């Protein structure tokens, strides 16, 4: 391990061992994977996307495009595409390189590099078209396998993730000098503050610079002091390892906090990540700036890296990136890096400066150190295979000189990070003199400060930070501040003609690719991006966008701002899906609603079916019974004896107030004026367009009070629909709506012996047909608690529906069951309920109707009050297509073969022998085996169905054609004698 003992502000003392590609290495506590590998002399860390070129770390932070590795703890905890420059090492960390086979050093995929002259931008659009069939089987699988980086995990993620909403006066994104100062000033004024930084430690650039002095302290010391001060303030929350990934409407920013990825053995109850959704009064963006690389042939060999990164490796981690380090720059900061490296004993054979004019003082400094500077030069070639070995430099007329190096550091200048500012919908503004985009004014309450605002001098940064929160910066004495201004964008030398000068490393986009795109007519930067994939890799163009833009602008002979930037989108850096999901998985994915009787059903062997958010008892198989057998038995028992059924999920709405009946008249197609208290009625609700929206039985409890029921799934939307009309169309009506779905447990008792079952439990009403006739309701007592007892039937048998307050639901159910069971009655589920009602031709909204069926179509014309001047849907029903002949109407179907049960959804035709496409008359909506009738029954929506009674039609299935006869839809007890028993 090579380390510079005096450097390494982030390093602890503990030695840590980890593996990379199976080999064990040692690093020091505080190291990133990249710094530790480089300390071990390992620069080769990955392979590029398309050409499989060998790559090392270019950067030292989140912008890294190359050094992506797979990090894993166990077979389930595998994380592909981890940036080695961000991943902190921990004891036992295991990392592997990606996108190579069989090994990183020898990768057969690298043949793509040999073929690269053909595999230029967009080559696949031009080829692989013939033979047409080969795409799916030959070309595409080949392309797919070649592409992609790491491997997706193959096991369920055992880790969990947390979510938290937070509010504060000021949120600061980025904890460099700008962010820390802004946070301090905001906190000093009594604001609640959240500050985050994506790094393990706050301080930003300060941690990478050892020369700088603030009030006599090193940058790292100053930052530590600030952090200590802020941490002591109760109003401030400091979030390290936390990335501001997105800026959303009205000052909502999303933060991802990484909690365990740096820990060797995380406590099992710790979430791996926590997502913060912060709504702030003001957002201070202090993201800093990102260094650009130089675009020249061979700029991707391991050992070539950003000057700032080299400085970071040195000063945060004590790692010199080489022994003999070349410099290629268009910006002064690379000199500072070079001098820094020189100071710790690295050799700096040459500084190649792309500029022809360089600050004299800096040149003097270089001269004093004996470092040769070549002005107006460029690197035309590099040598080396898996690591840089030398550079060829051209300058002036045509002199070419070579240097041996084992590393090359470069800087084309600093790009202010406009990501979050742009996401807040500020338009970037071009600064012509400095050649950079600056954040524009945001329509939201946010402000950019420091490096991301193009602010250079630390003194200005502090002043700006203070101002951004309306505070005052303390006076600081700042020494040895290096300017980050200056630089260039675009290709250097003749890299548009020769060699591979990478603009976008990960996606292998070269300067020539950009030129090709422009040549092919891609004149919008958005086309250039999509044609070349520049900026579309996992680093989202943090390094490449400005270069790509500059090259295109130059070729188009247009000023840069006219060509324009591509859109900055969230997330700032790739963000774990699990983090977005947070708690919302497993049992918390969606509430699972259960009725008060659910547990009894479960204890008694019910199978359940999901219906909207509810679990409903589907059928109650006895030992050895199939579903079919169970349902058959349940149906039979109800018809012969009785059955009890949990109907608690039905929506219930209390409609109360002096205008309740008038309101019901508007909302339902039926008339409600004549209904007497104590009576109940089946109601149909339409929307304005005249199609059936919902249905249910409505009981009139008093002149001014209705107990309305809705379908299970329809409950929320029906209430909303009613509220809408009440509040906005008929606000003068005195009616109030209250959801009582969950107030009541509803127990249906159906069958010839229903009365006998419940009779002893009921007090306050006589159950005989005179006092409680079919379609009536009574408020009484059942098992000693208040109840609403309906005499209604959805089975065609004598039936009651008991409503009792939910906390008594199970007890009452058990009491009923205690009475029912000895009589040979059964419990039945939704499936039997469906069969029983189908035998009676009762519709189920959503099954026998979809959103295109009118009450007329469903054979429910009788439920439409002709005399009412208005109801919702009345006008809609008069539209030409809704009154036309030949609409699909709901009829019954009987198969000629009584044993044949049609499939729901099967289509019906008149002539089964016609060619495809066939003329379909309609389809089967409900279909069952009716044990009672010993015949299959079905309902169907069929064109002009009411006029087709007795007609033979056909259901063409894949392997047979089934003959059916159109019938009425009431199969059982057509006169309805049973219910009136």
């Amino acid at each position, binding site marked *: 391990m090579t380390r510079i003992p005096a450097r390494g502000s982030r390093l602890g003392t503990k030695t840590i061992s980890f593996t990379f590609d199976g080999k064990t290495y040692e690093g020091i506590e505080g190291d990133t994977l990249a710094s530790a590998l480089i300390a071990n002399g390992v620069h080769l860390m990955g392979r590029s*996307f398309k050409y499989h070129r060998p790559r090392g770390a270019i950067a030292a932070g989140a912008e890294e495009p190359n050094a992506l590795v797979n990090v894993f703890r166990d077979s389930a905890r*595998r*994380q*592909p*595409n981890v940036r080695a420059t961000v991943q902190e090492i921990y004891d036992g960390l295991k990392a592997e390189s990606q996108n190579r086979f069989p090994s990183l050093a020898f990768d057969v995929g690298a043949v793509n590099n040999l073929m690269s002259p*053909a595999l*230029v931008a967009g080559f696949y*659009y*031009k*080829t*692989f*078209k013939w033979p*047409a069939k080969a*795409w799916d089987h030959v070309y595409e699988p080949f392309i797919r396998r070649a592409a*992609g*980086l*790491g491997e*997706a995990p*193959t096991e369920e*993620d055992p*880790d969990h993730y947390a979510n938290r909403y937070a509010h504060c006066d000021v949120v600061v994104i980025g904890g460099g000098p700008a962010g820390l100062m802004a946070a301090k000033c905001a906190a000093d004024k009594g604001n609640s503050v959240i500050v985050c930084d994506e790094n393990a430690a706050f301080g930003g650039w300060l941690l990478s610079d050892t020369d700088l002095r603030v009030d006599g302290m090193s940058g790292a010391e100053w930052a530590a002091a600030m952090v200590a001060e802020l941490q002591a303030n109760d109003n401030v929350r400091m979030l390290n390892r936390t990335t501001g990934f*997105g800026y*959303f409407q009205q000052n909502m920013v*999303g933060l991802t906090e990484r909690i365990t990825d740096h820990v060797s053995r995380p406590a099992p109850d710790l979430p791996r990540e926590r997502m913060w*959704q912060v709504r702030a009064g003001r957002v201070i963006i202090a993201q800093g700036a990102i260094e650009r690389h130089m675009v020249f042939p061979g700029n991707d060999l391991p050992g070539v890296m950003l000057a700032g990164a080299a400085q970071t490796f040195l000063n945060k981690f004590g790692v010199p990136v080489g022994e003999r380090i070349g410099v290629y720059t268009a910006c002064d900061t690379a000199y500072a890096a070079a001098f820094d490296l020189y100071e710790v004993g690295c050799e700096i054979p040459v500084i190649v400066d792309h500029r022809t004019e360089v600050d004299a003082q800096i040149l003097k400094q270089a001269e004093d150190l004996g470092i040769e500077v070549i002005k107006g030069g460029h690197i035309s070639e590099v040598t080396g295979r898996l690591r840089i070995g030398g550079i060829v430099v051209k300058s002036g007329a045509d002199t070419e000189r070579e240097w041996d190096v084992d590393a090359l550091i470069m800087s084309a200048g600093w790009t202010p990070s406009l990501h979050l500012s742009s996401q807040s*919908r500020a338009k970037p503004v071009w600064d012509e003199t400095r050649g950079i985009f600056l954040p524009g004014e945001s329509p939201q309450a946010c402000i950019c400060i420091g490096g991301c605002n193009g602010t250079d001098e630390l003194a200005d940064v502090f002043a700006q930070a203070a101002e951004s929160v309306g505070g005052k910066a303390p006076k600081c004495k700042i020494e040895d501040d290096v300017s980050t201004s200056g630089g260039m964008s675009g290709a250097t030398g003749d890299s548009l003609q020769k060699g591979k000068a990478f603009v976008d490393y990960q996606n292998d986009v070269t300067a*020539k690719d950009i030129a090709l795109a422009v040549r092919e*007519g891609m004149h*919008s930067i*958005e*086309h250039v991006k999509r044609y070349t994939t520049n900026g579309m890799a*996992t680093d*989202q163009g943090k390094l490449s966008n400005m270069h790509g833009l500059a090259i295109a602008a130059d070729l188009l002979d247009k000023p840069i701002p006219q060509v324009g930037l591509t859109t900055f*989108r*969230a*997330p700032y850096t790739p963000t*774990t*899906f699990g983090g*977005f*999901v*947070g708690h919302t*998985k497993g049992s918390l*994915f*969606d509430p699972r609603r259960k009725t008060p009787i659910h547990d009894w059903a479960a204890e008694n062997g019910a199978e359940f*079916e999901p*219906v909207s958010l509810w679990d409903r008892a589907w059928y109650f198989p006895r030992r050895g019974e199939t579903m079919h057998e169970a349902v058959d038995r349940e149906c039979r028992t109800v018809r012969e004896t009785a059955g009890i059924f949990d109907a608690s999920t039905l929506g219930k709405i209390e409609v109360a107030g002096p205008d309740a009946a008038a309101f019901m008249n508007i909302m339902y197609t039926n008339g409600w004026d004549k209904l007497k208290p104590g009576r109940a009625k089946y109601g149909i609700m339409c929307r304005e367009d*005249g199609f059936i929206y919902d249905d249910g039985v409505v009981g009139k409890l008093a002149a001014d009070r209705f107990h309305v029921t809705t379908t299970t799934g329809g409950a929320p939307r029906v209430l909303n629909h009613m509220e809408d009309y009440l509040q906005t169309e008929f606000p003068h009506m005195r009616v109030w709506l209250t959801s009582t779905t969950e107030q009541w447990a509803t127990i249906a008792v159906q069958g010839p012996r229903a009365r006998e079952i419940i009779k002893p439990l009921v007090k306050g009403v006589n159950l005989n047909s005179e006092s409680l006739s079919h379609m009536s309701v009574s408020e009484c007592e059942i098992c000693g608690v208040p109840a609403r007892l309906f005499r209604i039937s959805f089975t065609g048998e004598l039936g009651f529906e008991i409503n009792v307050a939910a906390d008594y639901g199970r007890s009452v159910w058990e009491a009923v069951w205690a009475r029912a069971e000895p009589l040979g009655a059964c419990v039945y589920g939704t499936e039997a309920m469906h069969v029983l009602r189908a035998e009676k031709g009762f519709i189920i909204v959503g099954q026998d109707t*979809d959103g*295109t069926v009118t009450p007329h179509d469903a054979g429910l014309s009788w439920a439409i009050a002709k005399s009412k001047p208005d109801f919702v849907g009345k006008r809609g029903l008069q539209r*030409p*297509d809704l009154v036309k002949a030949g609409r699909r109407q709901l009829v019954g179907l009987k198969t000629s073969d009584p044993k044949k049960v049609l*499939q*729901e*959804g*099967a*289509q019906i035709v008149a002539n089964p022998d016609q060619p*495809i*496409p066939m003329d379909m008359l309609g*389809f089967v909506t409900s279909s069952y085996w009716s044990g009672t009738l010993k015949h299959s029954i079905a309902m169907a929506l069929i064109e002009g169905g009411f006029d087709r009674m007795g007609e033979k039609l056909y259901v063409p*299935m894949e392997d047979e054609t089934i003959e059916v006869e159109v019938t009425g839809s009431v199969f059982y007890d057509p006169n309805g004698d049973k219910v009136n028993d």
Partner: protein
Amino acid sequence: MKKFNVFSLARETLRGHKGWGKQWDNPEPKKQYDVIIVGAGGHGLGTAYYLAKEHGITNIAVLEKGWLGGGNTGRNTTIIRSNYLYDESAGLYNHSLKLWETLSQELDYNVMFSQRGVMMLAHNVHDVQSAQRHVHANRLNGVDNQWLTPQQAKEFCPPLNISKDIRYPVMGAALQKKGGTARHDAVAWGYARKASAMGVDIIQNCEVTGINRSPDGKVTGVETTRGTIGAKQVGVVAAGHTSVLMEMAGVRMPLESYPLQALVSEPVKPCFPCVVMSNAVHAYISQSDKGELVIGAGTDSYVSYSQTGSLHILQHTLDAIIELYPIFSRMKMLRTWGGIVDVTPDRSPILSKTPVQGLYVNCGWGTGGFKATPGSANVFAHTIARDEPHKINAGFNLDRFKTGRLIDEAAAAAVAH
């Protein structure tokens, strides 16, 4: 136009790709055209192409306010299928599917139409009934669509979670094997290149700001940010912006525009072989040839023309994805974006003449019109050239909102994409 094939590619490789010409021209607008198409998305460019190719009309301008293909064509999740329920829809989308199958060859541009299969999951009894209704109707309409058990679904798509313990267990799936994906940008580029070669003027950075009409009401051309341009016929193919454009001609539309988001993960090696959609759990996913998981999210609930959307919409989407594919929990979101989709009351498109003579509109594709690109363009070109709808799009007229003859795929199945 230089041919695109292995030979030209090989030749150019030797010459450093110096000989490739522009794929399309960037002409100045002329004063007058026979037909103006507003909107250079896939549908608009395709319309121009078919007008030129099948109807001999080449004096056409396609006007685009931004860059061609930059609308929803450039931001969709590229799901292609044709297993729609109603005859009208099956007719239209299947027409399209047939054109997709030969589009790369026809355009001499590899649009990477990949028939890897589209599977739609059913999670409750109602879903099953609805999906089977589709399967049966499709079979009789000649559209491939088959029913799979959960086990078969898992075989077709190994990452799928078919455990019974999840909140909404998979109860089966409808599979259209001929469905799949295509490279969205290439569709716009391929049409643009061919249309341009046939003489169509594609004019980018040219926003239409007005629609001009003669005193008797007929269309005479458009106002644009690059001046007045005359035309006898104008076809509006502007997706999310249709209401804005039609308003310029005094036609109010049954449309609302919503932001719809999508996202991609970081690229990984092939791990997801097909396209899977779930309406009940609201998750749409496939993997692109580059390796990203491409995931469709939902719309925000309000009208908006901002091509962004809310964080909670993304969360809901990923909640659903992880419910169905728990193995993707550690995957990372690389980028998210939004488009503006124009939605009709019956969730079916409008391909229609309008009350204004010479004005035609192709819109209302909502969250699912990419798949229809070739078919829609093809019949819309017919509608403009003949001044009457093709029989395939006759039902998709504007009149239906007056008569009530809706083509309500949504009401029938709550399926959109």
